[in-house]
């Protein structure tokens, strides 16, 4: 609903038929005392209504930074966006006025944080925090906002919502907090929901519940969902498309089915091999040797080559281009075709 109202405002750069949210060739640097860390080096992805994009990668691969850049909550300085575009309905959010940017973000794009305890303000009740947005953004009265907040808590299946709405975050359990966080993010009817490792801090049974809930709400509301995670299990269940990130680049971009059937990048393959498997019980679990590169000194050539089992001389000097592997599928590996074509 809010989408329409945003789309209809005059003198905006909204382009009809453009993807819902599109990150195009985004560069972000962190200027630290030790030097300039190139955190994002040309990241591009997009998400459409009703679609789930999973962004996969180790810590420090830039998956959260991309999300923070989209939300406009990078700490600047030290962070700085040095290139690229973030388009929402075709309108570049990095170029519009600060006011419009924050309006668009507030009403069109919402974010769920990893640690719901620190994402909820401990001195206010859960209800108050949901209501604050409704009152400030939509001009609701206290009573209306309270009703809406209870309905939202109901929606995310928090039992006794009418009572829970008056409680403080520390009185919620981990799973309940994450549900409250989801309720909060849904308050303004966003078109895009960015979930930054929404289940990492939770135990396994609760993880499944939260993922189911997210998936269900997303389908119901036809939201675009960007799911940031390092959990391949979660990704397999919910993602339509997957972007695998390494050292600030998307190294593989593919639909979930083909990626799982045959990874197009050695890094993706290594990630999948490092998952514990019941049918290989007794075997030693494979790991990816080495550490992710320091972003202050990204290795020349393919950034993954020091850890890659397939690395050749060419990989040490030549940065792999983006190879197209069929419809909408890309890989940044010199041997992408061999990987997919079967060895």
């Amino acid at each position, binding site marked *: 609903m809010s989408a329409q109202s945003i789309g209809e405002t005059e003198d905006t750069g909204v382009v009809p038929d453009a993807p819902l949210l599109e990150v195009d060739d985004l560069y972000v640097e962190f200027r630290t005392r030790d030097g300039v860390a190139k955190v994002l080096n040309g990241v591009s992805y997009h998400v459409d209504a009703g679609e789930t994009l999973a962004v996969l990668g180790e810590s420090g691969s830039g998956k959260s930074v991309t999300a923070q850049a989209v939300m406009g*909550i990078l700490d600047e300085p030290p962070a700085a966006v040095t290139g690229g575009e973030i388009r929402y309905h075709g309108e570049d959010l990095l170029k519009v006025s600060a006011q419009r940017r924050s309006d668009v973000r507030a009403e069109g794009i919402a974010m769920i944080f990893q640690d719901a305890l620190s994402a909820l303000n401990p*001195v*206010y009740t859960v209800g108050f925090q949901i209501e604050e947005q409704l009152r400030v953004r939509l001009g609701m009265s206290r009573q209306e906002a309270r009703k809406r907040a209870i309905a939202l808590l109901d929606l995310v299946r928090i039992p006794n919502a009418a009572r829970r709405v*008056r409680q*403080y975050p520390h009185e919620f*359990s981990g799973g309940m907090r994450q549900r409250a966080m989801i309720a909060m993010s849904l308050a303004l009817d966003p078109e895009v929901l960015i979930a930054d490792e929404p289940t990492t801090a939770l135990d396994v049974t609760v993880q499944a519940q939260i993922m189911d809930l997210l998936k269900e709400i997303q389908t119901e509301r036809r939201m675009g969902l960007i799911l940031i995670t390092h959990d391949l299990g979660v990704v397999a269940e919910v993602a339509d498309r997957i972007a695998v990130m390494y050292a600030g680049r998307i190294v593989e971009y593919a639909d979930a089915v083909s990626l799982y059937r045959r990874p197009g990048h050695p890094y993706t393959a290594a990630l999948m091999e490092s998952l514990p498997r019941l049918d290989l019980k007794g075997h030693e679990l494979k790991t990816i040797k080495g550490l992710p590169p320091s972003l202050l000194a990204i290795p020349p050539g393919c950034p993954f080559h020091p850890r890659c089992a397939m690395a050749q001389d060419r990989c040490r000097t030549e940065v792999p281009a983006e190879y197209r592997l069929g419809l909408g599928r890309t890989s940044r590996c010199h041997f992408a075709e061999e990987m997919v074509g079967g060895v």
Partner: protein
Amino acid sequence: MTDPTIAAQADSGGSYVTALEHADGGGTGKKGKPRSLWSDAWGDLRRRPLFIIASVIILFLIVVAVFPEWFTSADPNHRDLSRSRQTPSSDALFGYDVQGQDIFARAVYGTRWSLLVGVGAAVFTVVIGAVIGLLAGYFGGAVDGFLSRVAEVFFGLPFVLGAIIILNAFRSSGVDSAFALVMMVVFALSLLSWPVAMRIMRSAAISAKQQDYVKAARALGASAWRIIFRHMLPNCLAPILVYATILLGSFIAVEATLSFLGIGLRDPAVSWGVMISDARNYIRVAPHLLLFPAGILTITVLAFVMLGDAVRDALDPKLR
């Protein structure tokens, strides 16, 4: 100041919740009331003997300060030189001073000025320090650099020397009302003490700023003003409140020091410090001139320090 209102808010929303109603964990409070940090701290404080003793003393002092006439019928300014330096008797509980004035009556009437200086200076210090600290902590970078350097300049001034200079500068301005005298001392004390409050607030603000709820508020397009005062301030209050309580006690003592040096309060604002100052030449011949005001001062300072300790124990998340 804020804490009772927040605690009251929390209490008013009380209702009963049973643990069984929530499959997924649920409320931690046995009483089932929504519990904020402040209402939690209050529940904790009520059970601390230290807090109760300190509060009783402080409440009593406040009553004395507001209604001194309830506690003595003697006129604190009535002079009877024939009674000069008389020791305590049933007539005058604490005896008479050099001028033949009733020490008990003077101590009772002096409560008001001593407390006013303490409270006024503590409030001023905390308000200045908190606002500057929040701004420095939130904006960081050049703003922080500038404000922190300014704070360091003030921090570097020797306290007593600074106070002597400031108060001397204003002394000749011809202010004579008791209130103006108090304000001068309050101003001098706050001006020299805000840097510590600022540092406490700045570090609390820096850590609050990293929290995701501040990021979430920014993502929702909240203004800097809203984030600072709505989201960060309530989370940064605990350490500064503790500091303020202890500071209050020490300001009362500092006022006595300044008055003793002859630059603090003076007639008509007769504080305990002024009484101690008046007694300084007669300590050996008539020790009661010194002992009574000094004893009251010590008890008062102790009460505030005890209160600060109790509040810190209740609010410090590491001990909870």
